[in-house]
């Protein structure tokens, strides 16, 4: 029965995909079918995975093979169920949102194709987390990549989208190649592509080989996850896709890489090397910090969010890195704590980043611009979107009692638990990474003050923003669901931690929920020690309980009265051009971190009468993206140079090609003898 419920959504997705194409001549019918099926399927698979997770069972379903070496087997264990739960939950919200959002494309683009890709995209993500065979995994992994490529270039009339798609395809395929190599190396030793065999044989391999496999896995999956310096595709690709797809890509697609990384490193490689954890931790810290730094300088709303995905992947990696460190030192409960920190952030990021992308979609639909410098004052036109965006901003800035805070708190706890180990380097590094996390959190808050403030507050800065309209109900429902989740997973973390406990049991054979949830399910503590505690439930109650205090204070002496008047502006009537811009807002940070950003500024002033009366002033500032210019540009140039050399091989003459084949054949004959 349960396995039927596990499989049924997969077929529903297929049905949605096919019916969407079938009705593509009639967009609104196609939308109903595509997203209706997707909604049903994701709701169903959410329920199934939740019930599996609560009961702590794992399911195994085998199908007869149709390819050599491929036993088509799916395994829904704790980790898979957890990820499926997140994917499905986010999918529910984005699907609700999509019903109304895709109307944007009616008559412009093939909505049938969008519905098709949407369903297949969800299907492939779920199958990636279910696959219990390396070949199957690779097939669905590639399907996911390719279908998301088509979604990135969905608005292919824009040059930007095509370029983004290209970068995306190249980068992710480099990653896929490394993953493939990893699996083939496993195959060499196991003679099978079954994950079960990998699990058995993997930990027995030599340390050097396993370290090599670890690096391959880290780089391979890291490319998809968007860790720095492999992130370059992400800020291009995520914003180009339609917003509902961006939400899925940022919210869950990059997380499938985290899933796979955990699976390979924890289960197949038997994490027992200290430096693996250190590498993941350091790269995580770097990604978190630089991700948010670049986000701060970004004024394209969706690109800003995309950079924040890099940041959050960094935070997740911090948790996973600490877990690997603890694993190598055989501190299993602490490893479970750190794993839970990382995995909880996976879910929380999916919720608030999904929410923020959906909100940006709503803004995009209302104003047709992603540049926040052209927005402003939307809070009056789109109060609901503003409210949801605020919830998302508060969550992503890790402000209590919302969910971002809880998982960052857990991450801090695992870092500080590292600070109490006996190993001296870890003792210094872990708290320092904690400081980086603090800086990241504060900068994220700054960034979202900017994003929210410039987009929604003050006066509209353009005609588009003036004419904005609130999103239709379906979109509000999608956003509302995620906003609710942000609150619930923030205020009631103990429920989710006990769910995550099943994951750590299946992953590490360590149950920590009893050690973490104390007393009586009210507060969280970092495993054994009474090192610290957190109860967001109590915090939320306290915050609410204090609400009457200011309310009474305001009415203490006289009834509440207020007058509405214009903003004080040195006696001049306020107009949008006087408002602080996003560029100005983030300029102090740019000045402080000049070394990193290497800004190129240009000021052009023309005077009516020097030096007091300006006719016009143009200020332009560009930051240097060091990774693109210092790392990828040289690589790109080297490849181009090499290609020019190789081009001499590529003569276009059939004879030369035949000669290559000939030479290969002869060499093979000689060597194979």
């Amino acid at each position, binding site marked *: 029965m349960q396995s039927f419920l596990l499989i049924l959504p997969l077929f529903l997705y297929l049905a949605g995909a096919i019916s969407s194409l079938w009705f593509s001549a009639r967009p609104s019918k196609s939308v109903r079918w595509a997203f209706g099926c997707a909604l049903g399927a994701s709701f169903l698979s959410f329920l199934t995975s939740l019930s599996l997770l609560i009961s702590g069972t794992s399911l195994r379903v085998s199908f007869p093979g149709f390819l050599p070496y491929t036993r088509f087997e799916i395994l829904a264990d704790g980790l898979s169920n957890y990820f499926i739960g997140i994917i499905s939950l986010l999918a529910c919200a984005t699907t609700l949102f999509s019903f109304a959002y895709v109307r944007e494309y009616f008559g412009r683009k093939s909505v049938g194709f969008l519905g098709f890709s949407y369903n297949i995209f969800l299907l492939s993500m779920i199958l990636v987390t279910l696959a219990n065979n390396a070949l199957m995994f690779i097939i669905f992994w590639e399907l996911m990549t390719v279908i998301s490529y088509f979604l990135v270039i969905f608005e292919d009339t824009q040059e930007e989208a095509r370029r983004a798609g290209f970068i995306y395809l190249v980068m992710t395929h480099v990653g896929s190649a490394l993953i493939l190599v990893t699996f083939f190396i496993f195959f060499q030793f196991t003679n099978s592509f079954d994950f079960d065999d990998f699990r058995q044989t993997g930990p027995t391999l030599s340390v050097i080989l396993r370290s090599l496999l670890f690096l391959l896995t880290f780089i391979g999956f890291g490319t998809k996850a968007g860790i720095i310096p492999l992130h370059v595709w992400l800020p291009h690709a995520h914003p180009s896709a339609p917003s509902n797809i961006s939400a899925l890509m940022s919210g869950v697609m990059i997380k499938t890489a985290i899933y796979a990384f955990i699976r390979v490193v924890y289960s197949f490689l038997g994490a027992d090397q200290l430096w693996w954890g250190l590498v993941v931790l350091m790269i995580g810290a770097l990604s978190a910090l630089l991700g948010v730094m670049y986000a701060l300088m970004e004024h394209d709303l969706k690109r800003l969010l995309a950079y924040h995905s890099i940041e959050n992947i960094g935070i997740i990696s911090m948790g996973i890195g600490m877990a690997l460190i603890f694993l190598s030192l055989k501190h299993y409960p602490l490893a479970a704590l750190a794993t839970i920190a990382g995995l909880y952030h996976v879910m929380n990021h999916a919720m608030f980043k999904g929410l923020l992308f959906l909100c940006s979609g709503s803004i995009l639909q209302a104003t047709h611009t992603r540049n926040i410098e052209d927005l402003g*004052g939307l*809070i009056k036109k789109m109060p609901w979107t503003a409210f949801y965006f605020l919830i998302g901003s*508060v969550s992503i*800035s890790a*402000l*209590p009692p919302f969910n971002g805070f809880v998982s960052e708190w857990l991450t801090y706890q695992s870092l*500080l638990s590292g*600070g*109490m180990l006996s190993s*001296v380097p870890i003792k*210094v590094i872990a*708290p*320092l990474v*904690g*400081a980086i996390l*603090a*800086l990241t*959190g*504060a900068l994220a*808050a700054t960034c979202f*003050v*900017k994003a*929210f*403030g410039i987009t*929604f*507050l*003050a*006066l509209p800065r353009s005609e588009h923003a003036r004419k904005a309209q609130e999103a239709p109900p379906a979109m509000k429902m999608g956003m509302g669901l995620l906003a609710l989740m942000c609150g619930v997973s923030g205020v009631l973390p103990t429920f989710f931690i006990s769910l995550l406990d099943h994951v750590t049991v299946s992953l590490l054979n360590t149950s920590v929920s009893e050690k973490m949830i104390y007393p009586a399910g009210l*507060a969280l503590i970092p495993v054994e020690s*009474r*090192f*610290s505690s*957190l109860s967001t439930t*109590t*915090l939320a109650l*306290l*915050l609410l309980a*204090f*609400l009457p*205090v*200011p309310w009474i*204070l*305001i009415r203490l*002496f006289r009834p*509440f*009265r*207020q*007058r509405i*008047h214009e*903003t*004080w*502006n040195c006696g001049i009537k*306020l107009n*949008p051009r*006087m*408002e*602080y811009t996003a560029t100005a807002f*983030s300029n*102090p940070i740019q000045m*402080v971190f000049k070394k990193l950003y290497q800004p190129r500024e240009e000021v052009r002033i023309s005077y009516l009468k020097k030096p007091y009366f300006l006719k016009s002033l143009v200020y332009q500032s560009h930051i240097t993206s060091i990774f693109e210019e210092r790392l990828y540009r040289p690589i790109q140039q080297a490849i181009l140079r090499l290609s020019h050399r190789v081009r001499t091989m590529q003569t276009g003459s059939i004879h030369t090609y035949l000669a290559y084949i000939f030479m290969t054949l002869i060499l093979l004959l000689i060597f194979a003898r």
Partner: protein
Amino acid sequence: MILTKILLGLLQIVFLMALAPLVQGIIKKIKALFQSRRGPSIFQSYFDLIKFLKKDQVVSEQASWIFHITPYICMISVLTVGALVPVIGVSVPLGFAGDALVVVYLFAVMRFFMALAGLDTGSAFGGMASSREMMVASLAEPALLLSLFTLALTAGSLNLSGMVQKLADLKIAVISPSYLLVFVAFVMVVLAETGRIPVDNPTTHLELTMIHEGMILEYSGRYLALMEWSAWIKQLILFTLLANLFAPWEIHLLWYPPKILVLAILVACIESSVAKLRLFRIPDLLAVSTALSILALITLVLKGL
């Protein structure tokens, strides 16, 4: 039993609320004395508050609901912090609800909404102040947390009451190089967090250099009362933290006022003897603070206590 505990907790909050304006008044008075002025009475802040609470308020026509909820949020978050911090006793009844991180992040909630409110009315002053506040806070945060981490690793607890208890148990042994380094770092951060010279000038009301005042420029009347009051409570809480973490002896009602008084004098001295830094020199100050915390951490790890 639980009820008395909760009542005690509430009492502590009322105590903080009541004392906060006084501390502000004392600092002002001492600063006035430094400047050879008589200065206002130390109770002037109470009179100001009552005055503000009686006044009608003027709200900008551009203001949205963000502007209206911000005073509430500032107040409730600072009161919640008040419930978590050990003030006149080591144990805090509601201390299990959050540790030092929660304190820092609840202050971040305050700041987040204040910065939004600064942007809300569309005036350039508000935007400028918000931007600067967020910059200063972003740089102060790692220094603050790192010094708290160092203390937490010294004490083996991140919960404030646990931390204070352990530090008190160490008696005189607590005074170590790392502890002193943390103290200096912490003071610097507190100056930044409370908007004091050399970071921000609390007495300015219409200058291009104002940070905290700029953000609340559009507030008047009762909202202003709430904003000012919560800022003062925040200041008192930070002083309390300083007092209880760096003088963890004799934590009870009798010794609390002298400790806070010493801190108030210290802050007033610093404010009177140092010039305000240029905006882009502030990061240097905070970098020094961060560097001191890192040094403290390293000495802690290498040398132990």
